[in-house]
């Protein structure tokens, strides 16, 4: 089964210390390598800060744009992985190793199988 692991966390309000940033990158690289080696990660990307988001809605044929993410929440989606796992326990096992799980939250959702 394929699962989406959606990583959400509070966005830093100040400039992040480059050293801290490097540690975060190293942690994600390590996770990526381990996941690739196990054949679990289908894909995964990090996102630019939510300030760069544009929300698009079409109503009555008109395209309406809002500056920012679709929901004002404290935790903001910062990246995702698509994981290929035999069951939820395995997906949870991997999601728990995503570095963001330690500081924010990771939502694990099965991807709908359309046959």
């Amino acid at each position, binding site marked *: *089964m394929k*699962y989406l692991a959606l990583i959400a966390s509070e966005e830093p309000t100040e400039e992040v210390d480059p050293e801290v940033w490097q540690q975060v990158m190293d942690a994600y690289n390590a996770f990526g390598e381990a996941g690739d080696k196990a054949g679990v990660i289908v894909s995964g990307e990090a996102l630019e800060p939510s300030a760069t988001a544009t929300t698009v809605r079409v109503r009555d044929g008109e395209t309406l744009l809002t500056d920012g993410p679709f929901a004002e929440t404290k935790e903001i989606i910062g990246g995702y992985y698509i994981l290929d*796992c*035999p*069951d*939820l*326990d395995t*997906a*949870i096992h991997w999601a728990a190793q995503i570095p963001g799980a330690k500081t924010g939250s990771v939502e*694990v*959702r*099965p991807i709908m199988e359309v046959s």
Partner: protein
Amino acid sequence: MSRVAVEPPTSDPHRAVAVAFREQSGKVVATLARAFRSIDLAEDAVQEAFETALRVWPERGMPEKPAAWITTTARNKALDRVRREARRPDLEASAQGTALVTDDDPALDEEIPDDRLRLVFTCCHPALNAEARVALTLRLLGGLSTSEIARAFLVTEATMAKRLVRAKRKIAAAGIPYRVPDSDELPNRLHGVLATLYLAFTAGHVATTGDDLLRLDICEEAIRLTRVLWRLMPDEPEVSGLLALMLLTHSRRDARVGDDGSLVLLEDQPRRLWDHTMKLEGLEVLDSALRGGTPGQYQTQAAIAAVHAEAAQADDTDWDQIVGLYDALLDMRPGPVVALNRAVAVAKRDGPDAGLVEANEVLAGGRLEGYPYLHATRGDLLARLGRIAEAAAAFRRALELTVNPAEKRYLESRIEGLGR
């Protein structure tokens, strides 16, 4: 007199069907769920077999081997369904090749113990919310009807049905596995299973409706399921601890409620009304568990119940030991409810003053402001110290927060008795 319905070799065929299904359905659902790889299909098949039994058994009499009858009938219903829908020829083949229980012999339990364990771990999966876990466990393993579970949890049947459907849909769609966790995850996952069974038990124990018999039913169902788990996992001391805790608590059931239906506190209970057979079994189960090393939270709670059980009368209670056990429990599971219970034990050991100091600290902590037992405890301690006005205020606050009629009557009588 015991208020627990003892099952006679009943002549009421409807009752007989219900009893047989409650005892067997968990086993059959578990086996069929593995064979057909669908909990939904398994449950529907067992439900259909139940309906057939309700029709057939009263006419033709009970089958000689009800368990085998249920298994075969449910299995055939499931096969029919799969064939009719002709969507899963692979499953039909796998189900055909699966060995099924076909006999009443309890020894056969041992041939497929993993099936029920799998179902326990699936129903109590931490990805399901706590309410859903209890409901699923009682429904799929306990064979209780949706309406019975709904009544026990004070929701409408439609709400409970929705909750069950939602949980089963999540199991299927999210890929919650049907298996016993690996040994590295087991302690954690087992804890979730025990918490679910204990929640089911306390839902029965702390009656919030007047439906006493149903409540006792839920308690006994929780004990039965814990016993099944205990037989399947004899080397897990916390499983024994939970079973002992339930048995020791439940052994006091007849003494907990007075003739007028009001709650009777432990210290006022006539101990001859305790179920001594059940008590002794609880002590024995606990004893075997405690030989296994450092006790966990259920063994510790059971040990507290055991200290009470071993006192011939309330005055003989070894409060020093109980305070020590609550200290140990607070280390394992810090929290205001445990701290409140410790305060009660301290009051018994060192006097109401000392107990009140601790109870006031719990109140100041703020998390238990809405918890009636905190106010009732403070009321009791204040009354003993002769601080009548404060005691009355505390009892009144407890009364405001209480739903259970027996507990309400108790609190009202305490308020009336103040200053006498």
